[in-house]
């Protein structure tokens, strides 16, 4: 009976859509702390856009804080980047930090997949919400273990403005859903 086949096909299609929805919702569970915000707020005009022409990055910036475990939080999706709002604003004295994902999600290549191609001297720019463009120049790339002390990434004492970019590197651990390394790109205000 064609009608029964029709119903069964429809049921399959519904299941397919449900699977898709589940896949989407499940993958957002991968990042369980994305919506946690710190109670400490910074009175600032935040950066809104990161542009790195050398690796074709032009990404919106979301301000984020800490996870309950005390790590820097991460951007919600693969395309955006996240600024650590408990630190300096990009352009202020000190080390501002921006993180972006690597890997694939929702058929989309994550924003910092090409981060390792950056080289010292490459330039990047931040637009803040007053429309000001601040340019930074890559100084060095350094690899960190995922649990390594990151004091040098978040603190600087040279009275200059820095912007440090963090992405992932190394081996994907499918169980822990983590990469083994972090790549940090250190940049100085031009």
């Amino acid at each position, binding site marked *: 009976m064609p009608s029964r086949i029709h119903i069964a096909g429809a049921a399959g299609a519904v299941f397919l859509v449900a699977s898709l929805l589940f*896949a989407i919702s499940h993958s957002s569970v991968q990042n369980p702390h994305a919506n946690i915000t710190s109670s400490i707020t910074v009175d600032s005009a935040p950066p809104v856009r990161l542009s790195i022409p050398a690796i074709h990055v032009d990404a919106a910036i979301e301000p984020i804080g800490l996870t309950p475990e005390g790590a820097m939080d991460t951007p919600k999706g693969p395309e955006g980047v996240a600024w650590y709002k408990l630190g300096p604003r990009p352009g202020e004295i000190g080390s501002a930090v921006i993180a972006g994902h690597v890997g*694939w999600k929702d058929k989309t290549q994550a924003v910092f997949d090409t981060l390792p191609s950056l080289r010292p001297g490459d330039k990047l720019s931040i637009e803040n919400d007053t429309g000001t463009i601040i340019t930074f120049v890559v100084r060095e790339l350094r690899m960190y273990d995922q649990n390594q002390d990151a004091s040098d990434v978040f603190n600087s004492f040279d009275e200059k403005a820095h912007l440090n970019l963090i992405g992932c590197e190394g081996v994907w651990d499918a169980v822990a859903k983590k990469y083994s390394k972090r790549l940090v790109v250190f940049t100085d205000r031009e």
Partner: protein
Amino acid sequence: MKKLNKNHIAALVSFFVLGFAGFAFAASTVSLGAADNFAVLAGSFITASTPSVISGDVGLSPAVGTFYTGLTTGMVTGTIYAVDATGPAGGAGNNPGLLTTAQNNLTTAYTTAAGQTPATSVLASSIDSFSGTGYTLTPGVYNSGSTMGITGTLTLDGGGDPNAVFVFQAGSSLTTASNSNIALINGAQACNVFWQVGSSATLGTGTQLSGNILAFSSITDNGGSTIQGRLLARNAGVTLNNTHVVKATCVNPPPAATVSSGSASYWVTLPLISVTKVPSPLSLPSGPGSVTYTYVVTNIGKVPLTTVWVQDDKCSPVQYVSGDINTNSFIDLTEAWTYRCTKTVSQTETNTATAHGYANSTDVYAAANATVVVGQSVVPPLIHVVKIPSVSVLPAGGGAVTYSYSVTNPGTAPLSDVSLIDNKCTGLPGRVVGHPGDLNKNNLLDPGETFQFTCQSNITQTTTNLATAEGTANGLTAIAFANATVVVAAPGLPNTGFPPKSESNPWNILITVGVFALVTGLAVVISRRLV
């Protein structure tokens, strides 16, 4: 830019002649070039109608040396320059090149100051642009299309920025009433105050003026005024009359603490250091002489300090005298190390000592300023501030810090207009009035008195903030700085990973699941058919 405070608003109501726009705009410092070394510079004459005391050089150009009247080398602890050999006896005379350059640089400085915008308008009146008491101005450019006048006290509030600049533009004359006073608080420094005067400046008797007067025509002191700054007249003369001019120089805060890169010191205590500096004698009334500076370095932190040194920007060598009781080369928490340096001071000068210590991979610094007056029996002010944070390291995300401050007077002259401010902690009084530490209730910070304060701040990132204490005695202002760094530990590195492409293509999974569902559905249909 800061809004004018209540005093302004009250004044606006009280004095209809005033017309502030409501905001003060940022001003830039004015480079004086070769005129910087001159305490007094004039175009047509320089007259000392009664004996005066000038610390800094004196110059006259283009008028020849015979247009010096009454001024002697005994009144000047600097060099007297003229364009020819007819200047005061004993002066260096004869340096037309230097004087021409100085006058040209003065013209440039005058034009630069006059051109600074945007300016807050001050409506013209005969003498009372800033009249009465209680005027407090924030850094910026203030402009009167015609005259500008001062009576009583005009307070310039630096807002905690030792580089704060004040530019006053008078379209025509600047006039001060007798005993008027330009007071400096919260980091304002006389070196950063500029009075651009479109015609001439006249100082009433006993004026205490802070700043550099750049006048198109003449500058006249009616008698007994003290100027920490400069009297620079482009085209006409300067008349001195029992005038005390001290060439103003800026003093700078000490460097912030630096933590060595890659050190694991973020979770331990950061060190703190303090230094006081006292010259002996404080003044040399009869002219140049020997002065011994005594520096006392103390450890106000919680860890012993090593690699201790003291440097002075105008005296060397600074030598260790005593204090390392257990001879372990560390300043322990109970120790106070004494250093000394002796030099001949030939003109009134302010010098800065910097003390350094090291502990827990961190270099810390403190500074102390001291002024010695030459040629007059005026006792200069001295002030000292100690600042201690309640914690030195906070976990990632930060938290609350309470800073404790002690302001003292290591000198002998009681201090008026005492102020304390911190550039990153709000809640300090600024100008101090009625402090319980003012034991004799004279509204002065006397030697032996201590003004204590606390201020709380929530910080989320590593923060170095600068406390500035300031006080005045005998028309001279003393300033002291204290830095403190509180480290906020770094968070863990973010988990910025999605699966790599090969493991993350959802269509593989979805197609598999979809096909499985279809097959299952078909199987059910077929099985039912078979049944």
